[in-house]
Structures are given as structure tokens and as C-alpha cells.
């Protein structure tokens, strides 16, 4: 363990009321050199104002192409404890529910083989175990699988799907986001563990347009619950809310489609015009509920800026009924992947590919019909392609 363990800058971050990650590292450091040297090298980064981690080499477990992020520091002599500092991504249970006993088992394994530091959770959704060495990976894998756990995704593969609490705890859920997430995770084990795509592919499932998983921004495939019929209303409860809030200004006036009215105590909604934004339902859950004919809007393309600029997912299918075993959804996803495999360049996300080739190529090969719901507005530029047989 490196002698210099004075970490004045980080020590300062133990102060203050917000929970301190430095305290956590120090707790782990009591038992782990790796954690202690993480503290030391981090203090060094705070001084130098640059990272001290190098590119990860390819490390992993037998037969898997992902799930472990290799990491090495650039000062192994000074910080031998973090010469290797790989992270292990464990696929979280849908909805992030745990029991204490299950977590204790995992923590015991991690204390045995790793730094004792974790992320609950990674941004994609994995339970991340931060900091171990290459020679420990197989043992970790053996022990977690024995307890019923598996690795998550990394590299050019399906990344660990994630979802909102949905029906487990939310009255707004229009689809069973957790069951969908779990089902897809198991249907696609091979795609998840063995990178064979042009680039990463992420799936997130939100039970309604509130999108509590930020699916539209963070997933190549965003599955968002919605309904086709009318908002269910309980006028008596509307009256109760009207004593607690100003329904006119807080609800009716804020309705984006201006499809509501509130006259002497009764709320009216022109459901034909409602775009299901959720605002009124959010504010008056006791009085208003989503309709009964429920399903999902399927959206494609969400991602961060690299390379052509950030994208938010856009509508490719306005409505899909989603009942177990969700074979219709599986079939659509496989068709999308096939098209992407056929046309995608290395490190080209599916959204970038649609952007490059145009929606038509994707729609035709997946059999999705073009509908106005896919666009904010039709094209304004007149550069329209015509196939030879369109022109007769």
C-alpha cells in the first residue's frame, strides 16, 4: 500500500450534509488496499486536475464479450492497489427491487474479491462492482451466478435493459414495464453477453409518458406506456381537488392541447384532442386515470452526442398492445436489429443509421407503415426520392 495516505482535499468532502462518497471509500479502505489506493490516486487527480486512468484493455469472463470494464491506472508503481481496477456490471433486477438477504450475499462476494466499492446503480441500470483484478473475474462470475445473478452488458451488444417501477408501485403504469424488461432481458441473453452489433443498443421501458427512466433520452429503443381510449374521470374527486388547487389555472390552462374545460365544478375532456401528456392525471391521480385500452408507443434512436449529435427517440409505432410473452415486441426488435446489422457501420448507433439512410429504409424492412405520428411535421425541403416504379 502506497505510503502517502494524506488526502486533504478529499477529506474536505467528508464535511457537509450530503452523503459523502469519500466516507464510503474510507470505509472500504479499512479492509481493502485497492480502496485505499483509489483514495490516494483520486486525491492525486484532485491535485493534478486530470484522470489517472488509462484505456481499459479487453478483460472478461469465459464465453462472454461484455460485462466487465477493464481499467488500469497510469501510476502503478505509486498506486499498486489500483494497478488493475476493473468494474463488473451485474444485471440488476427489473425495477431495482432487492431483499436484504440477496444484497448481503452479493456484498460478501464482493468483499472477498473486490475493493468493497459499488455503484447502486450505473446509469444504464447495472449494479456496478467497482475495482477488481483480472485474475478474480472468473471466481466472481462463478459465485454470483451460483446465487442466481448474471453479468450486464458492455461493448457493442444489447446493454442491460431497465425500466421504471411501473405496476409494482405506480397507478399511472399503462404497461407492465418490469415484466417487459425482465422478459426482454431473458429473451436476449445471447445478444446481451456476446457483442455482435455495430455498436451498443439500449432498451428502457417507462410505464407512461412521464418517462421515469428517461428512456427517450437514454435508450435506442424507448417503450412508453399509453392508452387509446378516454381518460377515466371521477367528478366527485375532481370537486375535492378543486378545494385544494386551482383547476382552471393549474390544469385546464396548462393542458398542451387545450382540450379541457372546467365549468361550475365539472371537468370536461375532449379525449379526441388529448395527446396523453399526463399532466392532468399527474396532478389529480385520485380523480383522473389513464384509459382502459392500454399499450405502448415504440420509439427509436435515443442517444448521447457522439458522433452526429445527441438524439431523442422518436415514434416509429404509435401503439402496440403489450401482453406476455411480448412476442410481437421481440419480433419487431429482431427486425430492427437485422436491418441495423445489414446497413450499420462500425460504431454507428441505430438512430444515426436511420438519420443517414432515411426512415423509409428502416420502415420498409421492418414492415412499419409511415404515419404522421412519426414526425412533428412533414418535410419542408423538396428533395424527394422516387423509386422507378413510383414513376409511371
Amino acid at each position: 500500500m502506497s505510503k502517502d495516505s494524506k488526502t486533504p482535499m478529499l477529506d474536505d468532502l467528508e464535511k457537509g450534509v450530503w452523503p459523502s462518497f469519500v466516507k464510503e471509500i474510507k470505509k472500504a479502505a479499512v479492509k481493502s488496499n485497492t480502496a485505499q489506493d483509489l483514495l490516494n490516486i483520486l486525491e492525486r487527480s484532485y491535485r493534478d486536475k486530470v484522470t489517472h486512468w488509462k484505456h481499459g484493455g479487453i478483460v472478461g469472463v469465459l464465453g462472454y464479450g461484455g460485462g466487465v470494464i477493464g481499467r488500469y491506472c497510469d501510476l502503478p508503481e505509486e498506486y499498486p492497489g489500483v494497478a488493475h481496477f476493473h468494474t463488473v456490471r451485474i444485471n440488476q433486477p427489473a425495477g431495482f427491487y432487492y431483499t436484504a438477504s440477496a444484497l448481503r450475499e452479493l456484498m460478501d462476494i464482493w468483499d472477498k474479491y473486490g475493493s468493497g466499492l459499488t455503484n447502486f446503480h450505473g446509469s444504464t441500470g447495472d449494479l456496478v462492482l467497482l475495482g477488481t483484478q483480472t485474475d478474480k473475474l472468473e471466481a466472481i462470475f462463478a459465485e454470483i451466478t451460483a446465487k442466481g445473478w448474471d453479468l450486464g452488458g458492455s461493448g457493442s451488444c444489447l446493454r442491460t435493459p431497465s425500466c421504471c417501477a411501473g405496476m409494482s408501485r405506480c397507478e399511472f403504469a399503462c404497461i407492465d414495464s418490469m415484466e417487459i424488461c425482465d422478459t426482454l432481458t431473458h429473451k436476449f441473453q445471447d445478444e446481451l453477453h456476446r457483442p455482435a452489433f455495430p455498436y451498443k443498443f439500449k432498451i428502457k421501458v417507462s410505464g407512461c409518458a412521464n418517462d421515469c427512466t428517461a428512456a427517450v433520452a437514454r435508450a435506442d429503443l424507448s417503450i412508453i406506456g399509453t392508452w387509446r381510449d378516454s381518460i377515466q374521470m371521477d367528478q366527485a374527486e375532481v370537486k375535492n381537488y378543486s378545494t385544494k388547487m386551482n383547476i382552471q389555472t393549474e390544469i385546464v390552462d396548462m393542458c398542451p392541447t387545450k382540450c379541457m374545460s372546467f365549468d361550475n365544478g365539472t371537468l370536461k375532456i375532449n379525449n379526441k384532442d388529448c395527446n396523453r401528456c399526463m399532466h392532468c392525471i399527474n396532478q389529480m391521480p385520485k380523480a383522473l386515470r389513464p384509459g382502459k385500452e392500454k399499450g405502448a408507443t415504440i420509439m427509436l434512436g435515443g442517444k448521447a452526442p457522439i458522433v452526429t449529435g445527441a438524439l431523442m427517440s422518436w415514434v416509429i409505432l404509435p401503439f402496440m398492445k403489450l401482453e406476455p410473452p411480448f412476442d410481437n415486441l421481440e419480433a419487431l426488435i429482431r427486425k430492427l436489429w437485422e436491418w441495423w446489422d445489414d446497413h450499420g457501420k462500425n460504431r454507428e448507433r441505430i438512430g444515426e443509421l436511420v438519420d443517414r439512410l432515411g426512415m423509409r429504409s428502416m420502415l420498409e424492412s421492418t414492415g412499419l407503415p409511415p404515419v404522421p405520428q412519426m414526425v412533428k411535421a412533414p418535410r419542408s425541403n423538396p428533395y424527394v426520392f422516387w423509386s422507378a416504379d413510383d414513376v409511371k
Partner: protein
Amino acid sequence: MADKPKRITDIGAPHFSKFLPPVIKKNYGKWKYHEQINKGTMKHVSETGDELYTVRMASPRLVSTDYIREVCDIAEKFSGGHLRFTTRNNIEFFPDKAQVDPLQAELKKRGHLVGGIGYGISNVVHTQGWIHCHTPATDASGVVKAVMDELHEYFTTKSLPARVRIALACCLNMCGAVHCSDIAILGIHRKPPKVNEATIANQCEIPTTIASCPTGAISPNPALKSVKIKEERCMYCGNCYTMCPSLPIANATGDGISIYVGGKVSNARGPARMSKLAIPFLPNNPPRWPEVVQAVKHLVEVYAKNAHKHERVGEWIERIGWERFFTLTGIPFTHMHIDDFTFARETFRMTPTFKWE
């Protein structure tokens, strides 16, 4: 060390039903409505009449095994051994009605922050930074800690006109997917990568490295089996470094933080939208990034003072107009604020209708 058990693969995550509290199992899909009881507690009521209480606490996300064991203790004592994490990395317990207050008391006693529910600031989605990544332009956990030490009251007690989602990403890869946040804290580089001629030939694949540049700033340098970088074309995204370790881009003076505002992902009232540049650059000033903390605090306060109820930051700004936003915040508008990438024209104001300030 334990003797290896036989190899199991492709089992995926355990099914969530193993982990659900009984009341959730019973009322799964039957929830009727919910009420927020306080900033740390809400009640969901089922069609069956059953009630589910949720108590939420903040987590630093980067936690030790002992921390997890501690929350397990708490879950066992107050929540039937059940707990969950939220998509913003908070922790939720499910006590019986009678246990709600004792649980909150216990959490406070142990120094945990209870809150994050409803209109205010919840946990900050963030990334690895100097803890574990090779491409960061700033740290993640440290900046979040410094910011929330200042803003924690919006988590525990104070309300805001609507949810204010703060996220941090330590480089343009945006692992925090900050691009749709009310307030996005984004690490940026400001100096082009330096070509390490010694290593590039055997460390990097030249064609993919050249292809990785969004602005075409990289051209081959066949003589040296290396590449040339047109520095005036480089906007420091770091993607070439992701592809090629011999193009280091981190730089103590060049690196720092920019602040984007007005994004959201929910579609309530208005559609999801991307965050826009508010502050082009603030220095990396560890351990407490005072410039960043002050900037975020100022933005939250100007918003709190001016927005209508239910208006997200972006909805507020779009109502008053960006020109008014810059006036109210006093943030200088610079050349950096004007887009100059592929879709720049879509951001130009093609109408003479605007406010003078």
C-alpha cells in the same frame, strides 16, 4: 478462497418477484392513486384498499459494501427486509403506516437525508469522473457532493415550482445522459488531443480513428503511420481518444465544466426536450468547485423566483424567451452560445419577433 462451483451462464437477472414486498405482490397493477405525505414519504392506495408507504433517502451512489449492509439492516428492521433503488439512485423503504415515523427518525439519527419526493431537487444522476474513467474532463462524485451540500434543502424540505432534475456527465460521452436535464453539468475539454507519435502506430487503427472525428479534423500522416489534427477544426469531443489511446486530450487548464439548462424527458404539458447552453465554461476547482456550485445555486434561485407552479426550467425559459433568461440570470451571451454544428441553422431566429431583453 472458495472452491469453484460448476459454471452457470446466460441466466440473466433474477425475476423481480423474488424481491417484491407482499403488499406490492398482492396489489401489483392495482394501484389507484397516491398522495405525497411529505418530501420523504408518499402513500399509494390500491383498488383493494391496501396502502403502500414509501420512504425515500438519498444515496451517494458510490457506496461501500458496509453501506449496503447498513441499509439492509434498516430494511429488515422497518421494511420487511425489502428495499429498492430509484432510477435516480435514491433508496426506498416500504414501512407499514405505523413504522413511517420511527423509520424516518432512525434514518435521520443515522445521518441519512430523507426526501427527494415531489417538486424539488432529487438525487443528481452522475458518472465516474476521476474515480474510474479515462476520458473525464472533470470529476463526478466530488462536484455532485459540493453542489448538493449547498442545495440539500431542496431535497429534504424546500419546494420548487416543479421538479428540477440535475445531472452531471464528466465528458461529452454524456453517460449521465445529461442532454435532457433541467440543469446539466457537463465536463468539457478545450484543447485538442496531442498525438503521441511514439505509440500511435501500434496502439491505434488509423482509419477508424480518422472516421471517429465528427468534424473531420483528423487526417492521415502516412510518413509516421500516424495522424495530423487540424486544431482549428477540433472541438475537443474526445471521441478520437476513445478510439485511440495515443491521442490524450485531458489538460489541467483546458478542462472544466459547462452548464446546460432547460431539458426534460417527461412529456407533461410540453414534450421532452434537450438542454441548451447557459454557461460555456467554469474552471475545475477541486475539492469544492465553488464557481460551479454558485452557478447552479443561482440558476435554481432565479428559476424559483420567476417560474409559475408546475413549470419546469425549460418550460419557464420558453415562456419568457431566452433573451429574457439571459437578462434575468445576468449570464453573458457569447459566440459559444450560437450553435455552429450541422444543425445550427435550425437554431437561428428566423423572425423579427423577440424581446429587447
